[in-house]
């Protein structure tokens, strides 16, 4: 604890509560309350009912949840692979003289692009690019997965790049000195050492993809409706309480997945 006196500690907690509760906690609590209610006209909702949840884990809603999960897992895995590959390639380029360093900067900038560009624009770009042969993805689930991949690869690349930079070259050299070829070094030394960061990146990608709405809205086909889209269309049509229940389900699913990933992380951390 950085604050030592008792009053100081209380002040710190009070300040935290004043900031945290209205900004972060309250909106979530309201959604949770709404998801259990039938009507909310006064200060407090009426209810409680679990009917919205019963509906949320059946039929169209369940379909949307699986759609979101499949999209997020697929996009995260592809993004992680591509992002790690690019991060390692970038590091190799960066060690190869002035031209290599220039090439690395270009590569980094390219991968950062989807972060800088609004996701609506990314969605539109993907839509325009893949609505024509030879690559006709429009109307399939793949266009959604592709857009999510493009969006989250940036984050995967960035966080893995940061970890690659911190990776001490002495391990790589020690391995090479012991007779390990580069591929063996990658598999047995570099990737294991990067595992905690890969895990963190995977969690980040997954969470981002689970919540992605703006690009998805421009792209999703009728048979591939992710959960955020369903929440949006339901609440848009006035079904506020059903939407709330769906939102809580989305939140819970994402948090559960992140928790699972972070368990792997604590197991793999060695320092």
């Amino acid at each position, binding site marked *: 604890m950085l604050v030592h006196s008792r009053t100081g500690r209380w002040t710190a907690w009070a300040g935290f509560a004043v900031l945290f509760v209205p900004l972060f906690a309250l909106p979530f609590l309201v959604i949770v309350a709404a998801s259990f209610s039938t009507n909310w006209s006064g200060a407090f909702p009426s209810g409680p009912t679990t009917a919205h949840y019963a509906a949320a884990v059946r039929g169209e809603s369940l379909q949307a949840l699986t759609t979101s999960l499949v999209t997020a897992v697929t996009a995260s895995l592809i993004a992680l692979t591509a992002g790690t590959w690019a991060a390692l390639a970038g590091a190799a380029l960066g060690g190869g003289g002035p031209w290599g360093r220039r090439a690395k900067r270009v590569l980094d900038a390219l991968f950062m692009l989807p972060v800088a560009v609004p996701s609506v624009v990314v969605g539109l770009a993907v839509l325009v690019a893949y609505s024509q042969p030879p690559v006709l993805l429009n109307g399939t689930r793949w266009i959604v997965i592709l857009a999510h991949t493009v969006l989250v690869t940036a984050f995967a690349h960035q966080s893995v790049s940061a970890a690659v930079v911190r990776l001490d070259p002495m391990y790589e050299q020690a391995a090479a*000195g012991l007779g390990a070829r580069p591929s063996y070094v990658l598999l047995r030394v570099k990737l294991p050492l990067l595992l905690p960061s890969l895990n963190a990146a995977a969690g980040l990608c997954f969470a981002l993809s689970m919540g992605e709405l703006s690009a998805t809205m421009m792209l999703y086909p009728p048979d591939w409706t992710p959960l955020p889209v369903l929440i949006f269309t339901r609440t848009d049509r006035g079904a506020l309480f059903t939407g709330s229940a769906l939102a809580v389900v989305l939140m819970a699913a994402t948090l559960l997945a992140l928790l699972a990933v972070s368990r792997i992380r604590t197991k793999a951390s060695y320092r």
Partner: protein
Amino acid sequence: MTSGIRFDAVSVAYGGTTVLDRLDLTVEPGEVIALLGPSGSGKTTALRAVAGFVRPVSGRVLIGDRDVTALPPYRRGIGMVVQQYALFPHLRVEANVAFGLKARKTPKDEIPGRVAEALEMTGMAAYAHRYPRELSGGQQQRVAIARALAIRPKVLLLDEPLSALDAQLRSGMLAELARLHRELPDVSILYVTHDQVEALTLADRIAVMDKARLQDCGTPQDLYRRPRTEFTASFVGNANLLPVTVTADGVAFDGTELNVAPGDATPGAATLCVRPHLVGLGEGPNALRGRIVEVQWRGSTHRLYVEVGGHRVKADVRELRETPLLGSEVTLHFAPEDAVLLAAGVNDDH
């Protein structure tokens, strides 16, 4: 295949700065050579050139009879231990030691035996299941050595392997290394250090480096008793370097005629090298009169700094009952056979 390392006019440069200048050095099979020199003199660079982590701009590196200059590190078959140990943190001790064997596709049934042997040799068998973070510095050090030895290299490169250990542990490890060397008589060892005690203890020969160049190379006794350059004399054993004049009649310091064999020294300016512990207090041959300007008590000896004719002479004197007084006039002496005449160097920074 014969082992041994040969540097053949090896030069290394980083961005136009030469950090290793035409190094010629041979480590014979089974020999221990210590690369000794101050920080930044290019010792690590020389080692990295053997290991293959840095590419010489010119010259060749040979291991055994094989020119390895262009080979990548993983094809050189050397064992290397660096200052920070670089044990793989995600692997247990035994997996660390087995790493090189697995990487070289040693038959699976041979690996456990070789790992056990290497751990036995370094006294770490009891720690096989630990992670590196669960070991002390000295234990990590042993594991790093075991890992390097497990691949049975013909060439072992050690880069300041003891510098992270405290003084007591260091002298213990030094004895261990000497024992390992006796147990592995075929392995050529190149041992980088800036600690002269390590070099003197362990090495068959010492190669003294300074400013990217090899300054001197010889057996410890040679370098200690008969240094060839001023740099060697002062770096190994911290000798007194006195500017003297050589004439046909003899050798003079500060106008005083000295009883020193001029040998084949050419007339003119020269440098006289005398070890501090060979300088005595009181009257004797080659008496030098001066004033004490500094006294350091070093446990078993007093180090006196005595100003003689504008030069500071260091003398390590044993068993003084009373601490000599600063500013008092004293006489120092040294035996004629304990002095070595050197060609005068350009630098006089003492």
